[in-house]
C-alpha cells in the first residue's frame, strides 16, 4: 500500500529543524517520498508546511538534519546548490514569473543558462513544455498578458522543462480566482498520471483527497498524522486533525 513507508525513497528527510530567530518552525521532521508518489501536505497556516518545502531546495537552510535525494545528500556543501536545484522543480503561490520575459523565455532561461543548451534547443524544449500545459499558443505573451491560471501553468512549464526528479508545489492555487483553480489542478493531475514525483502544499482538500497517494497533516512544526486520503479524511481520530478539517469544512460551506 502506498501509504506505508515506501520501499525505495527518492527523497529522504531526517530530523529537519528550522527556526526563525527564537521561533521554532520545524521541530525535527522525518519524511520519505517514493518515486512517482504524490504527497499532499495540509495543515493550518504557520504549521511549517511551506518552510518544509523550501528547506528541500534550500531556499531556507535547515539548521539540523539531513536530506537525501536519490541517495545523494543535498544538505551541507553550498557549492552544489545550483545542481541540487536543477533536480528539484518549484512552483510558487505567487507564480514568480519574470515580468520582462515572454512565456517562452521564462521557460527557456534556465535551459540556456543552467543546462547550457543552445538557443534553438532551449527554445524547442521550452515550447514542448508549454505544449504540455496547453499554452504553446501563448509562447510570445508576457506574464502581464496572461490570466493567473495561465501564469501558473507557465510557471509549471518552467520547472517541467528542467525535467527535475522532484516537484515542489507551494500552495499553487491559493493566489488564483476560484474559476481558474481547475486548469492548474488538471495540469498537475496529468503530471501525476505521467509518474512524476510531487510534493504539494495545498488548501484544496478535494484535490488532496482525489489525487494524492499520501496525505500529511502538519501542525506546529511536526508531522501529526499521515496516511492515505481515506485514512486522513475519514478514519482519523486525531483531535488536532479533526478540528482542522472541521474548521475547513465550515469555511468551504
Amino acid at each position, binding site marked *: 500500500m502506498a501509504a506505508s513507508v515506501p520501499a525505495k525513497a527518492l527523497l529522504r528527510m531526517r530530523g529537519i529543524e528550522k527556526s526563525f530567530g527564537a521561533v521554532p518552525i520545524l521541530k525535527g521532521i522525518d519524511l520519505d517520498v517514493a518515486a512517482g508518489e504524490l504527497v499532499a501536505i495540509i495543515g493550518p497556516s504557520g504549521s511549517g508546511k511551506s518552510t518544509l518545502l523550501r528547506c528541500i*531546495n534550500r*531556499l531556507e537552510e535547515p539548521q539540523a538534519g539531513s536530506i537525501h535525494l536519490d541517495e545523494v545528500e543535498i544538505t551541507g556543501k553550498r557549492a552544489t*546548490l*545550483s*545542481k541540487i*536545484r*536543477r533536480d*528539484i*522543480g*518549484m512552483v*510558487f503561490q*505567487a*507564480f*514568480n*514569473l*519574470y*515580468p*520582462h520575459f515572454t512565456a517562452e523565455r521564462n521557460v527557456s*532561461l*534556465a535551459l540556456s*543558462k*543552467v543546462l547550457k543548451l543552445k538557443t534553438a534547443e532551449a527554445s524547442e524544449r521550452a515550447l514542448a513544455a508549454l505544449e504540455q500545459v496547453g499554452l504553446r499558443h501563448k509562447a510570445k505573451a508576457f506574464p502581464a498578458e496572461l490570466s493567473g491560471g495561465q501564469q501558473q501553468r507557465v*510557471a509549471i512549464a*518552467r*520547472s517541467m522543462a*528542467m525535467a527535475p526528479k522532484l516537484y515542489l508545489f507551494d500552495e499553487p492555487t491559493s493566489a488564483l480566482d476560484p474559476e481558474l483553480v481547475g486548469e492548474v489542478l488538471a495540469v498537475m493531475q496529468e503530471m501525476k498520471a505521467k509518474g512524476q514525483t510531487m510534493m504539494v502544499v495545498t488548501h484544496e482538500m478535494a484535490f488532496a483527497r482525489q489525487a494524492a497517494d499520501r496525505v500529511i497533516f502538519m501542525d506546529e512544526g511536526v508531522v501529526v498524522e499521515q496516511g492515505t486520503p481515506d485514512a486522513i479524511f475519514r478514519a482519523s481520530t486525531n483531535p488536532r486533525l479533526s478540528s482542522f478539517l472541521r474548521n475547513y469544512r465550515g469555511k468551504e460551506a
Partner: protein
Amino acid sequence: MGEIGKFFFDGTIAAAVLPFLFEGFLVTLQLSALTILFGLSLGLALACARAYGITPLNVLIVTFVDILRSLPALVILICIYFVLPEYEIRIDAYWATVLTLSLVLAAFSEEIFWAGITSVSKGQWEGGLSTGLTFTQTLFYIVLYQAVQMVIPPLTNKTISITKNTALASVVSVSELLNQASSQQALYANPTPLTVAALFYLAVFAPLVVLSRRIESRYAVKR
C-alpha cells in the same frame, strides 16, 4: 526694452563669439558624456557588488557613497586638482572634472540602483534560484533589469542635475562653455556671450528637464 534687449543680445558680438562658445559647448558635451558613462557604470557596478552582502565590502561602499554625498562637488574638484599634486599625483583639469563628477554620479546612482535592487520582490530571486540559476545569474538576468526599469525616473533626474555640474570645470580653467563665455564677456565688456551660453544650456537641458517629468508622470500612472 529694446535698448536692454540689444544690450543683453548684441547680434554682432553674438556672431563674433559663437565659434568660441560652440567650441566650449563641445567640451561641455564631452565632459557630460564621459561623466554619464563612467558615473553610471561605476554606480551600477557598486550596487551589484553590494547585492552579494559581503559585510566589509558593503561598509566600504556605503562609506564611499556617504562621503561623496556629503562633500560639495566643487570641494572634491578643488581637492583633486590642487591637493593631489602635493602628493605627486597630477591630473589635468579636464580629467579632474570627469573624475569628480563621475565619482559623485557613481555615489548617487549607486543609492538609486540599490534601492531598485532591494525593491524587486523576493519571489523573483526565488523563481530564478529554484530553477538552478546561480545568485549572479539571477541578479543579472532577472533582478537587474526590473530594478533598473523601476528607478529610471529618479535616475534621470539625478543624472541631469549632476551632469549640469560640468560648468564647475570653468573654475579650474577648462575651456568649456561657461569658461569660454566668461572670458569672451570680459573681452567685449558686454554680457552677450553669457546670454548666448545660457541659450546653449537651455537648448540642451530644458528638453531633458521636460522629458524627465514626462517619464516620471508616465511611471506614476502605471503604478
